[in-house]
């Protein structure tokens, strides 16, 4: 904190240098890698490794002329619906299980088993029940993404400080306040950890469910390009998928840093040693 004030007082030119240094550190290696890719494939005649220039040329035509609406948007909607549902269900059941030691002891092995099943094998199972429509894909995402959220919520609720619980009881918090201000907030660091794991699982399942059986979607399109040997288009799809993954993880981080500022601060002071 104080160092930024110090920097602000310095002359403009040194501020500019500091900025340039930072920008170089952040952007330097990515630029080098992209340039290397560009140069390495510039004169490529290899069928499998088309020039980066060609990939970028087809990128716009491939995705922004129609597919954004017919493939990308449906994928993202299914992802959003499945992830949101997994969050709500996972936290709700997690709070219920975490609040009762008996219930926890009964269901924990069952939950551990379900979590240990590699989520993609649920795709063929759920196709049986839900066909290959949107419902199946949302269900697949929910069935895979729910476990880290659920189990982390259980752990979070369980590890809420005993003294804090006593405090809430002494001041006679009602059920609603206990849930909002004690249980959910208290478990939120673990819930966030679970939600972060769940996000990457949800993206994987979005893609897998579309690769396995679908008529549209990002995963479907990329596999179609590969099967029809539209290699530059396929690469552009892989890049788009990568960008979506990065964008969602950035979004997650923004939301997290807003909601969990107190946790970082607390953690920091504790590690700093009082």
């Amino acid at each position: 904190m104080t160092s930024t004030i110090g920097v602000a007082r310095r002359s403009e030119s040194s501020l500019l240098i500091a900025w340039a240094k930072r920008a170089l550190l952040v952007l330097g290696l990515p630029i080098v890698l992209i340039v290397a890719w560009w140069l390495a494939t510039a004169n490529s005649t290899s069928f499998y490794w088309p020039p980066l220039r060609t990939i970028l040329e087809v990128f716009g035509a491939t995705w922004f002329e129609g597919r954004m609406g017919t493939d990308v948007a449906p994928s993202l909607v299914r992802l959003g619906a499945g992830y949101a549902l997994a969050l709500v269900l996972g936290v709700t059941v997690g709070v219920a299980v975490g609040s009762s030691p008996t219930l926890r002891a009964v269901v924990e092995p069952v939950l551990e088993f379900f979590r240990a099943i590699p989520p993609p094998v649920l795709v063929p199972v759920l196709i049986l029940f839900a066909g290959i429509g949107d419902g199946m894909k949302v269900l697949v995402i929910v069935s895979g993404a729910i476990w880290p959220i659920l189990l982390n919520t259980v752990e979070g609720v369980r590890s809420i400080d005993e003294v804090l619980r006593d405090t809430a009881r002494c001041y006679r918090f009602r059920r609603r306040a206990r849930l909002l201000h004690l249980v959910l907030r208290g478990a939120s660091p673990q819930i966030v950890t679970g939600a972060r794991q769940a996000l990457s699982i949800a993206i994987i399942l979005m893609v897998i469910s579309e690769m396995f059986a679908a008529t549209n979607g990002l995963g479907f399109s990329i596999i179609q390009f590969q099967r029809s040997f539209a290699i530059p288009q396929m690469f552009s799809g892989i890049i788009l998928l990568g960008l979506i993954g990065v964008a969602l993880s950035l979004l997650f981080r923004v939301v997290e840093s807003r909601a969990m500022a107190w946790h970082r601060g607390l953690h920091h002071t504790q590690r700093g040693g009082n």
Partner: protein
Amino acid sequence: MTAGATPLAPAAAPRRRGIPDSALGVAGLAGLVAMLELIPRAGLADSRFLPPFSQMASALADQLDSPAFWQALGSSLRGWALGLAIAMGAGVVLGIVIGSIPALRAATTSTIEFLRPIPSVALIPLVVLLFGSDMRSTLILVVYASFWQILVQVLYGVADVDPVARDTARSYRFSPWAQVRTVIWPTALPYVMTGFRLAAAVALILEITGELVIGSPGLGKSIAVAQSSGAVTTMYALVIVTGLIGVAVNLIARRAERRVLRWHPSVRGEVPA
């Protein structure tokens, strides 16, 4: 979810119940089995889609008799172990090198943060193009996905090295190798083990996924074959097997973590990264 149906303990329940947790856990598993048996039998679910548990169990017994099953299981476990070992080696070495050279660390942070969230399954079309349904296709997915888990944990671990200890080592002119051995590695070890535990689970997911989608040999492929040939009970039996492997992997990884860290002063939680 079935949580609502199970009786809740009394609200103020730190008091002992008298029944050990393990017995309750077994009861929970028995309840799951009973439900899987009764739901299709009672007609609550179509038994073509959800066969009773007893049929899944007998299909599982059939599988245990067939050499093809053991071959598939062997391929899956080999692919998992090999991928995990490669990711572990690469992750630890690169993590220590990048982590202990500040300039390198600063220059690579943004790239790592960018590459890490790229979903590994995005690579599926590319590896299929390059290697077809060979086991190498799946191996690349496994290595890619588990590598990041380990690398990031090792980087945290190296960053956690006590600056005083490091300065001490430097002031006594320890060689870089001695610094790694005596200062960096012991501090980073808990993080390495956390990374190992996370990566072991991720590697299994990607191994099975690769087999399922790409068709490289293994249990995932068997599941896909069973599904497309309508052998529903066999498919469930194989799904149960993958779940059991997952449980075993988690248990082994946790035990390994505890064993390696038994002597360690800070048996610590994972870094929320």
